[in-house]
């Protein structure tokens, strides 16, 4: 396959920027055009719910790379540019405003957007969500000690926002329909630990109840739950998950099913069209099923993998998925492949919030979560990759080096 001469990347964030940089590292000397709807240089999202939201880090520190990088590497950055359509047959992009851009190959790295539910009052001023730096800036404007906030949804983003608000002295009531925070990802036992963390920091939690409406005249003044509770507030932030932003490929013949469907080489079903990052529902060779994840590490690594694949040098993308979430002084990390589990094995102390917990299915470790135990979590990567039955007693024993539980020929 001859190397393409123009590679277009739609979405100038973590995944797209990683792909563009990798193309140059790999020696690609054709044209690289990186197009993104946001006006800022590609930046990092994790600080948006953490240090940036608290005003503890300036925006410049969240930039993925300095402006010179793109100039030096001759990466054409087209910011504030929305791509309206990928025409896979004619091999051009249609941009808002009517311009067309020809390409030989295209990488779709359009990420996700926050899910919105038809809850009455969701559009009231004072009700926020968080995906971009512009969103974070809007929330920062209303943060002040003593103000009252309602956080709706205690998934990772909601939990981080609740933590940051508390650290800024905001009074926080959090409403979560499941029994505990992070319930879907971590289950009840570990979810309770996270609940304790937030209670200890003064978050008032309403669990097992959902938001029925946001109310107020001209601006949100209270949140009403399905069980009839009314929580007065000055503002509210909801975090109800994201949906993949796949509409640019509509009508192009590219298969979309929970994101853009790609194989282990980041290829869609249409030649010349690739996808990676939050938008990509990728086939994962380690667990032999498709999955879509919304993790920083996947953005970096899959963006790079897609770039190599576009140059005809692809290797199956088979990273053990991994992400972190920082809440107060707790560094939470999760690795592996989320699947229904039948056993949880804890290594360390739940009470002290310093542990690693393994989720096992039929005796195999599918995934693991750590709080303030990152080194051990990383040591578990090869165990997760190996997909072999392990002795739970040895997993639980802090004296056992997790790297020794995998036969040498299976080591990652």
């Amino acid at each position: 396959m001859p190397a393409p001469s123009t590679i277009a990347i739609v979405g100038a964030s973590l995944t797209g920027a990683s792909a563009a940089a990798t193309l140059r590292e790999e020696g690609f000397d054709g044209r690289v055009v990186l197009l993104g709807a946001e006006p800022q240089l590609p930046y990092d999202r994790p600080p948006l719910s953490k240090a940036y939201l608290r005003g503890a880090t300036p925006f410049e520190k969240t930039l993925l790379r300095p402006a010179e990088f793109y100039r030096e590497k001759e990466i054409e950055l087209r910011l504030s540019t929305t791509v309206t359509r990928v025409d896979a047959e004619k091999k051009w992009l249609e941009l808002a405003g009517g311009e067309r851009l020809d390409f030989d190959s295209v990488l779709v790295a359009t990420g996700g957007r926050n899910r919105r539910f038809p809850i009455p009052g969701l559009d009231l001023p004072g009700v926020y969500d968080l995906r971009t730096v512009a969103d974070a800036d809007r929330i920062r404007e209303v943060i002040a000690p003593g103000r009252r906030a309602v956080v709706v949804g205690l998934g990772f983003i909601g939990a981080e926002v609740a933590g940051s608000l508390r650290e800024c002295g905001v009074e926080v009531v959090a409403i979560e329909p499941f029994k505990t925070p992070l319930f879907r990802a971590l289950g009840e036992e570990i979810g309770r630990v996270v609940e304790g963390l937030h209670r200890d920091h003064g978050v008032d939690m309403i669990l097992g109840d959902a938001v029925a409406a946001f109310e107020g005249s001209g601006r949100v003044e209270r949140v009403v739950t399905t069980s009839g509770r009314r929580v007065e507030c000055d503002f509210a932030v909801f975090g109800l998950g994201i949906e993949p932003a796949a509409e640019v490929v509509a009508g192009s013949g590219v298969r979309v099913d929970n994101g853009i469907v790609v194989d282990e080489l980041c290829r869609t079903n249409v030649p010349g069209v690739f996808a990676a990052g939050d938008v990509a529902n990728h086939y994962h060779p380690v667990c032999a099923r498709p999955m879509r994840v919304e993790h920083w590490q996947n953005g970096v690594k899959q963006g790079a993998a897609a770039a190599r694949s576009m140059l005809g040098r692809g290797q199956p993308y088979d990273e053990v998925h991994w992400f972190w979430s920082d809440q107060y002084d707790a560094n939470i990390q999760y690795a592996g492949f989320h699947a229904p589990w039948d056993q949880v094995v804890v290594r360390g102390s739940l009470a002290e919030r310093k542990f690693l917990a393994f989720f096992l299915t039929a005796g195999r470790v599918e995934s693991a979560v750590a709080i303030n135990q990152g080194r051990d979590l990383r040591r578990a990567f090869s165990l997760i990759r190996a997909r072999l039955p392990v002795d739970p007693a040895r997993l639980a024993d802090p004296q056992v080096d997790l790297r020794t539980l995998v036969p040498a020929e299976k080591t990652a």
Partner: protein
Amino acid sequence: MARFVTVAKANSVQPGQVLKVEIDNFPVAVANVGGTFHAFDDTCTHEDCSLADGDLEQHKIICPCHFAEFDVRNGAVLTPPATVPLKVYPVRVQGSDLQVEF
């Protein structure tokens, strides 16, 4: 002014190990890579975690918080999310003492 400060006994950091020490209340890590010592800031340039709490794999130190990797020989960033290199310090062994120039 920079001077060599004794931080530990040389035999207290075996090959493959990292030790956290403090010089003037400043956290510094010393790694032993196959018999050669390397000293560097213990504080990760990403978000301030202690690198001595991470694993040393040959010449790579891996931050336990978000798994940034640095080359302990020169402080270079090998893997993001860190983008800023780590400060490194000269090390020497005087008799049985491990000394860091600080």
